[in-house]
């Protein structure tokens, strides 16, 4: 079920209509959300109806075991078991694509039409589920005794495609109390986010992807260097609007059920350095990598700073490889890890405090802009490896950029307009969005409904071709 699509919004509307009358009966409302979660998974493949409940049940039991056990070795064994289950699930689906493709012809002989590969990666399920057992292991959270609440929270449907990764303990506490006040308070915001996310996805991300980015990355040699450069910049914005659009819809969908999910993006291309970028981009994953991977690596408290830098590179490289087992993602991770390490070294060097106090008066807007531009350029450079089909394609694109040929014959008015909107919407002052939200919330219900109906017609229109799946859905 693609988000945003007519089936998804019908599904969401029906879940909303069924949920609130049952909300007074905790077990019934949890049961309904659990049914919705599993229905959502089953739309991708029926196999998930076995995989997800099995993994969730094991994690529930491990959680209880962790809560009750005081033996360090047993607790360690239990948490390792949970890590093995969830990483095993992640790896078996994410990294066995090639093996599945090899099996496909064999399976096709027996079951024609059967797809061996599962369409939906369970990465975000695994990350979310691990927050539960790891938090209990670290004694940052308590295990729930409600099997139903655990199953429901760990597979909460708005978060399973691509996050925001939410701590299961937070979801359980929200699901087990009445969220009607949250929903009432945030009705306007929920619809605003769903509308904004849909617009971001369909009108900006998909348009740029279809009409510029895919073409440039497929055949850079057919375009001038300036067009290729625009294509790379367009990809940076396509990815942002695609992913943040999805996050908006997920957060808005959850709010309709009275559940608050964490913010996932904060205008990432306004970052002034790469560490700042990762505080603004895919925040829930950055936090997950920091809390559960980076802090778990050895040597963090060592007096040798080298460990800190090395751990940053390792964390980001693993984060890169998580996107796919190929050189492109590894290079992307290494680039970001190295940049983070260099930034950390630069920001913590002993002479930094004096230098910054001396220069702060003379720097200012110009320096900030230069830092923003430099960070954006670096991020775009790394995106080339992230987006290209393989290493050769990435190098060919970069090489073609080096030809410095100038021309914009393939960039039509619609593309220029969309690019300008994408850039401007990203860089307008923060308070504009706050004011827009306030104005939206102050609109009468009928006006909001009318605006959403217009959006529905827009979705109907684009549904003719089907919106492209969210880019991060495949990771």
């Amino acid at each position, binding site marked *: 079920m693609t988000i945003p699509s007519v089936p998804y919004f019908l599904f969401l509307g029906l879940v909303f209509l069924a949920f609130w009358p049952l909300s007074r009966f905790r077990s019934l409302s949890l049961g309904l959300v659990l049914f919705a979660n599993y229905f959502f998974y089953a739309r991708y493949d029926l196999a998930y109806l076995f995989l997800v409940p099995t993994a969730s049940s094991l994690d529930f039991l491990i959680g209880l075991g962790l809560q009750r056990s005081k033996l360090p070795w047993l607790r360690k064994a239990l948490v390792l078991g949970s890590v093995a289950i969830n990483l095993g699930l992640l790896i078996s689906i994410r990294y066995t694509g090639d093996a599945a493709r090899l099996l496909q012809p064999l399976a096709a002989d027996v*079951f024609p039409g059967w797809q061996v590969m599962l369409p939906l990666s369970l990465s975000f399920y695994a990350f979310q589920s691990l927050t539960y057992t790891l938090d209990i292991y670290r004694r940052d959270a308590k295990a729930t005794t409600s099997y139903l609440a655990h199953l429901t929270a760990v597979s909460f449907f708005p978060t399973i495609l691509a996050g925001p990764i939410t701590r299961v303990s937070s979801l359980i506490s929200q699901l087990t109390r009445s969220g009607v006040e949250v929903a*009432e*308070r945030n009705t306007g915001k929920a619809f605003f986010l769903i509308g904004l996310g849909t617009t971001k996805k369909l009108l900006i991300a998909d348009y740029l992807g279809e009409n510029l980015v895919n073409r440039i990355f497929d055949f850079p040699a057919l375009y001038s260097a300036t067009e290729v450069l625009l294509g790379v910049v367009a990809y940076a914005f396509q990815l942002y609007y695609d992913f943040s659009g999805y996050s908006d819809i997920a*957060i808005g969908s959850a709010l309709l059920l009275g559940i608050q999910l964490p913010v996932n993006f904060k*205008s990432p291309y306004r970052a002034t350095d790469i560490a700042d970028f990762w505080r603004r981009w895919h925040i829930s994953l950055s936090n997950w990598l920091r809390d559960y991977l980076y802090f778990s690596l050895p040597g963090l408290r060592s007096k040798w700073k080298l460990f800190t830098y090395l751990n940053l590179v390792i964390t980001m490289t693993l984060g890169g490889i998580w996107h796919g087992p190929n050189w492109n993602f590894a290079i992307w991770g290494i680039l970001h890890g190295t940049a983070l390490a260099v930034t950390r070294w630069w920001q913590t060097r002993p002479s930094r405090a004096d230098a910054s106090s001396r220069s702060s008066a003379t720097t200012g807007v110009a320096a900030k802009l230069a830092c923003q531009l430099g960070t954006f350029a670096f991020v775009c450079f790394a995106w080339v490896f992230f987006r290209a089909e393989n290493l050769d394609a990435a190098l060919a694109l970069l090489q073609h950029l080096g030809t410095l040929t100038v021309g914009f014959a393939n960039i039509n008015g619609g593309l220029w307009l969309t690019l300008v909107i994408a850039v401007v919407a990203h860089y307008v002052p923060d308070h504009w*969005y706050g004011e827009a939200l306030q104005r939206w919330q102050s609109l009468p*219900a009928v006006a909001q409904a009318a605006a959403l109906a217009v959006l529905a017609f827009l979705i109907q229109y684009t549904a*003719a*071709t089907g919106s492209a799946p969210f880019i991060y859905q495949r990771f």
Partner: protein
Amino acid sequence: MFPSLRDLFRKPSIAEATKSEPPQGREAAPVAPADDTAKPFRLLGYPMRALSVLLMMLGLVYLPQLAPSLPLSTLQPAQWISAFDLLEGRTFDFGIVTDDPHASLDSLLAREREHPLLDPSGSLDPFFRALQQTENARISRPKPDGAAAVTGPVHVLHYGDSPTTADLITADVRTRMQERFGDAGHGFSLIAPPWAWYKHHGVKLSASGWAMASPTLSRANDGMYGLGGVSFEGSQGAHSEIALQDAGHNRVQVYYLKRPNGGTFSLEADGASLGEIDTAAEGVESSSRTLVLPAGAKRVSLRVDRGSVRVFGLELFKNKPGVVYSSLGLNGGSTEVLSRHIAAAHWAQQLREAKPSLVIINYGTNESVYKEYVSKQLEKELRQAITRVREAVPDAGILVMSPMDRGVRDEAGNITTAATIPQVVEIQQRVALDMKVAFFNTFQAMGGSGTMAKWYISNPRLVGGDYIHPMPAGAKLVGDKLFEGIEEQYRMFKLRELRKSLAESTPAQGKRG
């Protein structure tokens, strides 16, 4: 029980309009504190404002049903059902293969007639004869001196547009042909890439100092572009290097122009001199010269030593029987390149030098952009191109290869086949059959109308984001189809030849008997 009409149109209370988190990445502006502390009305536990917005929106979405003339589509019952369709279009076909192994001969022949490669006039017979000789030479026992096993290569010239420029499709056909009939060398290569898109499988070009002219770049006044459609003018110091992945080539044939005051250029292989070529002559004349490569040569370089020279490209051969498949693509190329832009006498001379067994004319995609042109001009241009090839190399087979499907977005946003593509294919087929040359229906072979839409959503993607240029996997698919078409017709040719020889020998045997 339900909220009143006034409630629906009223502004929300401050409590409703505030206290919310900002949207993604934005801080909400400071808002006034809530003063509406009354417990809100709830029906069946619903947050009423959300419920009313949802229900009104649903009502508005169905409003167009009251005015069917409006170009707005409303939610269809099927879409409601689709929200609950667990299989979501997935099908599980456990059926039995319906191919009947005992299908009648008629149906087999009918299927044959539907084959995308048509050659009812047998125009490819000279090409197939050459293939047969090559095949026989490959399987015959070589004589002690090895000479008898070597026949001239079966040379295929494939003229085309952008996919051919990037050696897409052609590289795949070359590989399949050479696996089947033997590898007699890479064939033609330009001496510098006129477009970044120009790339040949197994050949890497680096060059400097050349001024290039081509019908689709800046044109040369005399229309002399050589076999490959690009002319390279260079003065002293101009240089090209061709790195070969395959070190098995034995000969290089270089194409150039002789002219008054022509300069000299030299060729080297792996640093060893192959010879110097003087292009000076009394008159203007297209020419070529073949030089022997040392064993294992991996780099061939060409350098202008004196004056100014004009070079058209070079061909690489091996001393063994097999196929040479030359990819001759021009970015943005169309049939007019062959029918009018390349000077006829010059091109005829270049074709004769190349001694092709088959010339493939593979255009149509770029023409399909211009509807009027397709209707009024394409047929004339194609007839002229075929006539030119036939006059230049009468013994060569000619194959007109249709364009692939070309996808465009329609008004509803669907990827559909450009309306002119079937028209181009129809014209090409009609002209080819009328002029008694062979025709390969690429469009049909790849799946016909709407193929690019399927290719675009397939995994891995088979066509690029422009719905025109095939990805390597898509190009291979088309290349395989063309090879299979050629091989099928070759089998039919051999069958015909066998029947003919049987028919000739049977009466003699009868007399003897």
